[in-house]
């Protein structure tokens, strides 16, 4: 059984290592500050006891006044999972650091989010539209796209 | 990569294809021979029973294509009278959700599967076209009451069994060689 790790404990661990990164760690998911995402992802991947080496779903949700980027991490070794979230505000040019260096699984998913929701991923090697063509106007999965 | 089996793998494979040379072909020559389709088939041309329909419009809400057009007016005893019941089978995706949602068993999926028409206009099915007729029968999808009237499905699984359920072919209309249709 893949066990969801206790987010509060993990949140404490991360907060110790990278101060000011954890925004909330309510039951079920862990929300981190988008600025420290790169460090947090490195920490989650390399810390013994966590070792989240396997990124499954990476998606984003448009809550109109902010975007929430969701990462579901799995540790194949310890058979545990964690839902990591980060929030990004503003609709014009939302930017989140890319995690492709840590997990290459994010490569296409970040491109897809950029394509459909218009969130930029800083540090992504090839941030182009994935499903729609270059020059498409707008980002269809935003709630205000008609 | 080393060749260590001296070609025995190739010989085995060739033996198998040779064995298949003497097996019966699985082809069913469609317009001439027709297999019995499933009794629950979600076939073409919805069947609509006007006497059961109350005009409630559940099916129109259930359709994810927004494809069913239903126009009613109030008749005597404030019952709905259906003026127009129409759907475009060119846009229908045959999901069967309308049949599933109908609380009065007034809809059923059709049994036919030859949907080609010569013009797009013919694809729009009106009230008259949707009613039951000789060549327009309901299937048993979500309507188990029709189940007994329909012929058994011909399963390829029982193809060459002795004594089992044989492949059943629908009666051939005049079989013409080489006509193709």
């Amino acid at each position: 059984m893949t066990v969801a790790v206790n987010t509060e404990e993990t949140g404490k661990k991360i907060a110790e290592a990278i101060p000011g990164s954890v925004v909330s760690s309510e039951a079920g998911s862990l929300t981190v500050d988008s600025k420290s995402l790169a460090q947090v992802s490195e920490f989650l991947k390399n810390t013994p006891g966590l070792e989240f080496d396997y990124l499954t779903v990476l998606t984003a949700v448009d809550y109109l006044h902010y975007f929430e980027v969701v990462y579901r991490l799995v540790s194949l070794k310890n058979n545990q999972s964690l839902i990591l979230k980060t929030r990004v505000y503003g609709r014009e040019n939302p930017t989140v650091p890319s995690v492709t260096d840590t997990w290459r699984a994010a490569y296409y998913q970040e491109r897809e989010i950029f394509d459909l929701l218009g969130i930029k991923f800083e540090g992504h090697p090839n941030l182009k539209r994935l499903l729609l063509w270059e020059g498409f106007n707008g980002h269809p999965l935003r709630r205000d796209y008609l | 990569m080393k060749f260590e089996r001296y070609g025995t793998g190739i010989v085995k494979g060739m033996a198998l294809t040779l064995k298949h040379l003497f097996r019966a072909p699985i082809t069913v020559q469609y317009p001439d021979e027709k297999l019995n389709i499933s009794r629950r088939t979600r076939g073409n041309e919805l069947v609509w029973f006007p006497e059961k329909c109350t005009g409630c419009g559940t099916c129109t809400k259930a359709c994810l294509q927004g494809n069913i057009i239903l126009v009613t007016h109030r008749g005597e005893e404030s019952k709905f009278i259906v003026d127009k019941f129409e759907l475009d089978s060119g846009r229908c995706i045959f999901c069967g959700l309308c049949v599933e949602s109908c609380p009065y068993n007034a809809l059923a999926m059709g049994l036919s599967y030859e949907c080609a028409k010569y013009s797009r206009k013919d694809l729009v099915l009106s009230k008259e076209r949707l009613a039951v007729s000789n060549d327009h029968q309901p299937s048993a999808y979500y309507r188990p009451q029709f189940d007994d009237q329909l012929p058994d499905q011909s399963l390829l699984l029982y193809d060459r069994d002795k004594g089992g359920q044989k492949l059943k072919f629908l009666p051939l209309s005049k079989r013409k060689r080489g006509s193709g249709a």
Partner: protein
Amino acid sequence: MTLLDQFQLILKTAGWPEWAVYLTPAIVGILIIIIFVLTVVIVFIWWERRLISRFQIRLGPNRCGPEGILQPIATAVKILLKEDIVPEKADKLIHFIAPIIVFVPILLIFAVVPFGEGAILVDLNVGIIYVIAISSISVIGIFMAAWGSGNKYSYISGMRSIAQMVSYEIPVVLSIVGIALVTGSFSMIKIVEAQSIPFILLQPLGFLIFFLGSLAEMNRSPFDLLEADSEIVAGYHIEYSGMKFAMFYLGEYGVALAYSGIITTLFLSGWQGPLLPPILWFIIKVMLVFSLIIWMRATLPRLRVDQLMSFAWKFLLPMAVINLVVVAVEVLVLPAGLQWVMVILNFGLAAVLILLWSKLFTLGGGRVEV
């Protein structure tokens, strides 16, 4: 004395002018051969489609005519009625000539194929060398088609074709030399007449090499890299349609017929056989060889280009050389009457060599080095 020579003699005695005596039999003979070849090619197309579908538990074409025998004609009519499309960026002249250059040499091969006793257009004393020489010309045609189409897939196909044809020519020729050593002649008629025992028994290894080599020469599975449907779509004839495509299509089956005929002549004792008339024996044997080719096509996957090359150079070529040396020694040492000893010796040799070479033969992990 061939049938044509007899025909000439008849005309001469009838008092025809000298030019007509030479020209009439030649034209009649050529017409007969072309008609025969085209008919058999049509039968071949039908036979391949029917047989391969039975290997694949399908029915195959069965609508046109009895058992679908007229399907190739229907296909031909369809192809001929199609628009002839020439790509804008194609090299028009080369694109136009290429199908002819592919098709004509294949017809030329039939000049020296003996269909029966004396039923040969011309009994060249270098018959088999002529076949090898003429059939190599189609490679140029294929390359021209590949280049002239201006399509990148056909470029790849053209490059593959040159490499493949040139490599496989060598083992094929070497295995033929083995036969020439036994018969002492390159003439096709002489070769057939020398086969009291079919050469497939006398030289099993030579047959294997020639068969595999000719499979590669006529681009049949598992060496059908030129057309590789799943990789380079249709290879060199990707940009052809209409009549030009029909030329390639006929050429493909024509070369299959030609090589089946040559294999029959060289290794299966040609038209010889008891009871039935010679021409029937010839056709039966050709059909058998062609059915074997179809059977292989129905079963085997395709080799990769570097594996194909290493198969030719590392497997077939050394074996062909050893085979040649062994046959030469046997012909020198053994008296002519002791051919059965040669059969046993050669079968043993073939088995040992194949086992040995299978152990030694590697494909280098499939990486780039060829």
